[in-house]
């Protein structure tokens, strides 16, 4: 596709349920990031994948959060036992180079935990 694609665009769930968010990066991009954006705030780094290297998970806020990526393709972010404070927009970005100078963002998944 022409850009980074994320699905679903909106997700409403009940507290305690698990959710899975999907990101399709731009074809050929080796780096993939997940960020979280709470209402009215800046972006908060969650996790970074670069090729076949071990992911940088230093931004994951708790062990309820996990992410996977198969090769240089699709990534999924899973949040287990969701809490109300998990409500946010989850943004995925990909980058074509090792330097990761320019990130291309998707439109995000708006997650609402009731």
């Amino acid at each position, binding site marked *: 596709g022409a850009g980074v694609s994320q699905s679903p665009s909106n997700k409403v769930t009940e507290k305690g349920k698990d959710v899975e968010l999907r990101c399709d990066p731009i074809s050929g991009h080796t780096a993939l990031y997940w*960020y979280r954006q709470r209402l009215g705030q*800046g972006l908060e780094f969650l996790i970074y994948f670069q090729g076949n290297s071990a992911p940088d998970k230093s931004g994951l806020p708790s062990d309820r959060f996990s992410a996977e990526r198969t090769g240089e393709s699709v990534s999924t972010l899973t949040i287990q036992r969701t809490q109300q404070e998990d409500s946010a927009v989850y943004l995925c970005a990909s980058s074509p180079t090792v330097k990761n100078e320019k*990130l291309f963002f998707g439109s995000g998944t708006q997650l609402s935990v009731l």
Partner: protein
Amino acid sequence: EDQVTQSPEALRLQEGESSSLNCSYTVSGLRGLFWYRQDPGKGPEFLFTLYSAGEEKEKERLKATLTKKESFLHITAPKPEDSATYLCAVQARGAAGNKLTFGGGTRVLVKP
């Protein structure tokens, strides 16, 4: 810990009224400073990367400058279509260089 602070939080401008946005940062060795534009309901869109103090970049009505402690985004004679949230981010050298640390953004509204 890397930190980025943007000011003001919000800016209301009349069309044609030039202004500047500020991004103050602390980072353990700067690899790059980035400006992004974000429209409502969309992901951020890349504008500029600055690498060293004294560097300047321009795109249409936008001009970004960099010092050792801060960056400015100057908007010259803005138009309503320049209304957006402008985000500043830094990337550190070394092991921490895999991520961008973002500021809270400046919401710009340009009225006709």
